[in-house]
């Protein structure tokens, strides 16, 4: 965290997760969840030091092209095919505070909806210049950004005619292991969003809206790439003013 601000590291426990806001484990419309969802109640525990701490990754780990999916797998002088976009945003916590110096990883299908993965058998073509992975570390204001091509929708074997909306998967670290989050970003105006059983695992429409990135016209680069803004909110943490009983403090 050497390249961060001089603010004190936080060590309060996290706000309890609102599990009515998140999808429940068992969502039969998304068939794979039926056998992969626990049936017993979760054991609830206010965060201990094992949960309020978490790994930190240095900026030095990040390669120059790690946040440029148009080029980071492409042959020299070539680039991925598709609609060029920039995706950017801030990582905040529930208190609205920036979450600096955290790792954000993202992965996606190519412009035709095809993933570069051996278990994927969709007949849309692989793009020889597109790998589909990227990563960034948030700056002191919690900001991240990357360049990519807009992914295509793709069919999947759930219902007989289920298609995923265009989406980008996100994996986000916070400052504590209990903030660990994986989610998916969708695109403003995509009619597929409201037909998707995976989107539909989330019960509250307002929560779904939180996953839809608006077109960010202001940040669109003329003659180059359009922009989408996707802010991510991690769990807030309590201030530590009345929490001084962690042994050793």
């Amino acid at each position: 965290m050497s390249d961060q601000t001089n603010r004190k590291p936080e060590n309060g426990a996290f706000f309890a997760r609102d599990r009515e806001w998140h999808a429940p484990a068992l969502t039969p419309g998304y068939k794979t969840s039926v056998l992969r969802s626990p049936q017993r109640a979760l054991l609830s525990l206010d965060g201990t030091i094992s949960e309020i701490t978490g790994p930190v990754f240095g900026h030095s780990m990040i390669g120059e092209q790690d946040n440029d999916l148009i080029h980071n797998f492409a042959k020299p002088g070539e680039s991925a095919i598709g609609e060029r976009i920039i995706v950017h945003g801030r990582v905040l916590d529930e208190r609205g505070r920036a979450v600096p110096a955290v790792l954000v990883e993202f992965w996606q299908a190519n412009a035709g909806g095809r993933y570069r993965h051996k278990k994927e058998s969709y007949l849309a073509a692989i793009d020889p210049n597109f790998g589909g992975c990227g990563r960034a570390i948030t700056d002191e204001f919690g900001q991240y950004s990357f360049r990519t091509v807009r992914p295509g929708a793709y069919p999947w074997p759930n219902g007989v005619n289920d298609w995923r909306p265009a989406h980008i998967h996100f994996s986000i670290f916070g400052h504590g292991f209990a903030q660990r989050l994986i989610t998916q970003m969708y695109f403003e105006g995509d009619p597929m969003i409201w037909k998707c059983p995976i989107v539909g695992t989330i019960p509250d429409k307002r929560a779904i809206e939180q996953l839809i990135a608006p077109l960010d016209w202001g940040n669109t680069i003329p003659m180059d790439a359009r922009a989408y803004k996707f802010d991510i909110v991690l769990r807030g943490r309590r201030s530590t003013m009345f929490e001084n009983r962690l042994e050793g403090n």
Partner: protein
Amino acid sequence: MQELGYLKETPSQTAGPYVHIGLTPNFCDITGVYQSDLGTEMVNDKTVGERITVTGRIFDGAGAIVRDAVVEIWQADSAGLYNSPSEMRGAADPTFTGWGRCATRAEDGIYTFETIKPGRVPFKDGRTMAPHISFWIVARGINIGLHTRMYFPEETDANNSDPLLLRIEHRERVATIVAARNGSTYTFDIRLQGDKETVFLDI
């Protein structure tokens, strides 16, 4: 009255079957983008502590092996300190990351971590927790990552007074989060659903 004004947490979504593209690209043959997959090396020659191997498989509610999961672990060093800015008690071993990531193998679903046995860390009320490793599991079909812990079978006394293990009302379920030991190898199988379902945590 003022609005409370807090934001809502971004809702989780499944990691999906192609999670490897993003988290372990070299594992799924996307090479040349990152030098190596993150979290594959937790220790080096200088790391202090007893070397152990932690391995296991994940089973679904029909007893089938889950071959497309990614497992992450987080643990203290051998002195019971976390390598994290939120660790206020002292500096952890700088040669130990404390964090590992491993995909379950497509052939047999096995995950493996080469790590060290963690020291004990305090609970909030001053009691001491038994040595443990925190686990986080994501996969296709799992809508929100599952947290659990692995405890060590030889730590009988510590386990018997561990604040989390004592909270488990159905005592036969304690065994689901204690690994099986064979020399320096600990096998920790995770059962997502049904008989002997692993105790998962809301933390």
